[in-house]
């Protein structure tokens, strides 16, 4: 059973977004981690880097493939989840909690309108 929490926003490229004021926590969905299968390596964005919406900022790798992760929002990277560097399997085990990828301070609230809610995302998958 694919888990899709109600309180999150989603993207077409299977990232989830948890908004808290002008900050957002970002990771990949349960569906995505299932599709990728066993994650063996994660690359995270540099701290304090300025990023633009839809830019590839992170990479998630399985044994036989690699997937780009796109930031759904523009802004500054203010936190990264270093735990997944040493133990990438956390992303498989807990995609919405311990396996998040990075925190961003976003600058354009209009970009939030492009995010999908649970029902839209369910239709997508």
């Amino acid at each position, binding site marked *: 059973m694919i888990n899709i929490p109600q309180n999150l926003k989603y993207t077409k490229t299977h990232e989830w977004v948890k908004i808290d004021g002008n900050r957002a926590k970002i990771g990949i969905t349960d569906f995505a981690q299932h599709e990728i299968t*066993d994650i*063996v*390596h994660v690359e995270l964005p540099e701290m304090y880097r300025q990023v633009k919406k839809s830019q590839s900022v992170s990479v998630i*790798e*399985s*044994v*036989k493939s690699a997937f780009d992760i796109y930031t759904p929002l523009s802004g500054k990277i203010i936190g990264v989840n270093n735990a997944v560097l040493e*133990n*990438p*399997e956390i992303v498989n085990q807990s995609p919405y909690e311990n396996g998040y990828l990075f925190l961003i301070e976003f600058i354009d609230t209009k970009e939030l309108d492009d995010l999908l809610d649970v029902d839209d995302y369910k239709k997508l998958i």
Partner: protein
Amino acid sequence: MEKLLNELPSSDIPAYNIKSDVGIDVKIPESLRRNLALGLPSIAESDLLRHFTNLSRENYALSTGFYPLGSCTMKYNPLINERISKNEAFTLIHPYQPIESVQGTLEIMYEFGRDLCELTGMDYFSLQQAAGAHGEFAGLLMIAEYFKSVNQVRTKIIVPDSAHGTNPSSAFFAGFDIVHLESEVDGSISPRKLKEILTKEVAAIMLTVPNTLGVFEKSILEISKIVHENGSLLYYDGANLNALMGIVRPGDMGFDIMHINLHKTFAAPHGGGGPGSGPVGVKAFLEPFLPIPRIEKNKYSEFVLNYKKSESIGRLKAFFGNFLIILRSYIYIKALGAEGLKNVSERAVLNANYMLARFKNRINVPAGDRCMHEFVLSLKLLLKNNIRTLDVSKRLLDYGFYAPTIYFPLIVEEAMMIEPTETESKEMLDDFIDVLIKIIFEEAVLEPQKLNEAPINMNIKRLNEVEAARKPILRWK
């Protein structure tokens, strides 16, 4: 399983030893001297010999069995090539010897290049590149230099999605942007789709003919016309040249530049992953850009090295290319000659079509009923039994066969790519076909778990690649 070197019995007197007949005179200041312990194993020759012999027996090899590896062309490596290439007049030659003392080596490289020109319809070859991908890289750098020389800004290379991964990667490292071209179900190129993305920024399109599904590009002349009318160049990935020797030449199809992998077409040994050699051939207008030095023949019929090529892309490696690999391939050509080479391609295509004919009514073949030297099966029918192509390939190991190439090309779901090569007998092909059919139609239905767990008869069982990558152990402790 065999122990690691550092676990073998340690001997105070190791296998090798060397003496000085001038004494030892070594004064090294502290700042330059090594203080770190080396930690090298110290093992007797007898134990080392057993160690490496035992390890060799853990290897599947051409000398032990059949490699049905699509796109990789593991054909038989004749022994005479090894024998001649061990001649000390070839092995004990320094690259900076005076030119008059290496005329034999230069003659071989020169004549080999000439034979390649005849075989491919190109005008010049460079033999410096150390592998196929190295050849691609050289070719793409030459394309970049060519367009600079005619003052055109062309920054893009078109690569079909059925291409080898080296194509887009080589183009990227040569400084180009990659434009992906969606290929048809049989891996072929639609001239209409090509036209849609063929802008004035496109420097070249890279094509593999026959393509990676084993299909000859039937629109090649139309493609060539469209590409050249746009001022772009046509690049031939010679990975599959072994299907076409003496039958059709890339140069005649309209290709401007190409590379060859010597182990695929010309029986150089694979060596467990290399070394290789990747000659690059060009039409005359691209000759000025070839890597230096060029091997030439002067008016006295002496072979010389020409470094004076102002428009050359430069050199791709130190020295002159992997001569001892080139030599083996040249011997192969001299063993076969024009007729023999044509026979190789005919037989390779015959073998592949025979196998395809036996599979085609039972297993999905996306590219149709006929092929050139290789073909691709899709084993997606097994997904409903929770069996993947990987499982089938691991089960083949249990039956003493190496597995075909799997999950390539990327455009075929659950792909299994089979290339028998010309050097296998019908009996060998039948044995393989029977086993594969048994696995797919009997075992996959009756004992799916066996496949999921395969290999089960090998010394080593299925290895955990996930843990290997998550917690990398890349050296002994």
